[in-house]
């Protein structure tokens, strides 16, 4: 009898513990990875062990050593310094992309979701048309129109990311706009803009925030992908994708070169992915 009660008790306890763990698991690991990465990248902006663009003929494809943590590339540039600098570039591109994507997405989604009617029909059909292309293909088109360069990459990826955010915001606005608190706001004389951005927008944040995190990941990968294809960040500037494409020629002779960059990308994406999941669980 006593054993039975004991069993029930421990089960309940472990369930509680599990629930507590479940809430924090993603968020904590995500936060730790992201913060560590961000500290690395921030340091990279101010200080790198070597000049990431300086070439040293004697150190061509040098292995891991005390002087060069991750060795040197085919021009004798310190890989660790370049990774630091490069992830900074990647992060900036991803941030810019997300800012453009969410900014325009929020405005478009709010207008179409709130007003509906012809405006909604026209904008959402255009949105569907853009959405039908993979975002990287779309960015390719924009790049061929705008030309290469870091700023152009941000604009191109940003535009390619607008439709998915516009959709998310629109569906949230559709959900909220018929709520009684919106009617109440109209009754007290609040204007449309105030209702959209002060009353409704905060209610879309939980959904928006987790999709921003996922979008951020996609942006990191898209930038890496485009730089890998050679249409992103141009040499001699470092970016993770750019370096990956340079490293592939030495995949068998110096696997550590490509691997160290790949691990950096994985950590960056993993950190934000877990953080996004964690935020989703929070609400």
């Amino acid at each position, binding site marked *: 009898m006593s054993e039975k009660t004991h069993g029930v008790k421990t089960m309940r306890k472990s369930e509680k513990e599990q629930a507590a763990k479940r809430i924090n698991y993603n968020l904590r690991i995500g936060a730790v990875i992201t913060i560590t990465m961000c500290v690395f990248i921030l340091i990279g902006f101010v200080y790198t062990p070597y000049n990431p663009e300086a070439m040293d003929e004697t150190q061509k494809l040098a292995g891991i050593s005390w002087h060069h943590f991750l060795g040197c590339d085919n021009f004798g540039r310190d890989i660790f310094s370049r990774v630091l600098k490069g992830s900074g570039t990647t992060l900036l591109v991803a941030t810019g992309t997300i800012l453009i994507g969410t900014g325009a997405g929020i405005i478009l989604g709010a207008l179409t979701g709130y007003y509906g*009617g*012809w405006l909604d*029909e026209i904008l959402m059909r255009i949105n569907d048309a853009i959405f039908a292309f993979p975002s990287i293909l779309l960015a390719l088109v924009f790049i061929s129109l705008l030309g290469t360069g870091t700023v152009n990459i941000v604009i191109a990826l940003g535009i390619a990311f607008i439709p998915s955010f516009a959709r998310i915001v629109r569906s949230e606005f559709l959900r909220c706009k018929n*709520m*009684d*608190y919106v*009617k*109440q*706001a*109209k*009754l*007290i*004389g*609040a204007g449309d803009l*105030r209702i959209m951005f002060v*009353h409704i927008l*905060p*209610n879309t*944040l939980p959904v928006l925030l987790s999709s921003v995190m996922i979008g951020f990941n996609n942006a990191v990968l898209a930038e890496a992908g485009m730089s890998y294809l050679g249409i992103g960040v141009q040499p001699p500037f470092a970016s993770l994708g750019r370096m990956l494409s340079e490293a592939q020629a030495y995949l068998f002779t110096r696997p550590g070169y490509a691997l160290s960059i790949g691990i950096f990308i994985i950590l960056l994406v993993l950190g934000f992915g877990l953080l996004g999941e964690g935020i989703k669980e929070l609400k």
Partner: protein
Amino acid sequence: MANILEVSNLCAYYTEGRQIGFHKKNRKQVCKDISFQIKEGEIAGLIGESGCGKTTLVKTILGMNKEYTGEIKHYSEQPQMVFQDPYSSLNPAKKVGWIVEEPLRVKGGISKEDMHRKAIEMLKKVGLDEKFAERYPSQLSGGQRQRVCIATALMLEPKLLIADEPVSALDVTIQAQIIHLLLQLHKDMGLAILFISHDLRVVYQISDWVMIMKEGTIVERGTAEEVYANPQNSYTKTLIKTLADADEV
């Protein structure tokens, strides 16, 4: 006493479906030739079953439904409203204090301190103390939410309050409290109330006079006692008989 709201020969319509594209519009007449007046400081009851056009009538009176013929004359500022569902009438992302302050913020011309002070005063008036200002709606019960709704509606000091089934989503004990609160506010502030319900007894408790609505028309009107004691229309008779039967059981 002067009229505060005059509705004459009001016919309201409701268009089904989307109004764009090639969808066939289906325009339904919901309210048919409705006329009534509400005087300053009186409580009018509107009784009708679900789907008889009560809510459309209210929307039309408040200017949220533009499809109507007839005349609606307001002799005061915009009337305010208390909604049926206290779970969707408070913004879940905002604190109670913010929600109650918002009418003043929109109106403008008031300092932050005054706004906060007035909001707290109003919360106290509806029976909530100031610690509620820091809570989110999800932390409140249905009755407390409805009190916050009433507080928000009264912030602009309207002369007329429209209460659309304000108690039908609440427990019976809480219903009594909210009705008591409305009656008290009516006395203290000289507030006129248009009280809408499908529950005859609730309306009977609170109203000076009542209207019975069926399928978009008003079939009977009079003081609450008259209608209750001596119904003329067959629909009213059935309503009261059902009530009496329910009481016997």
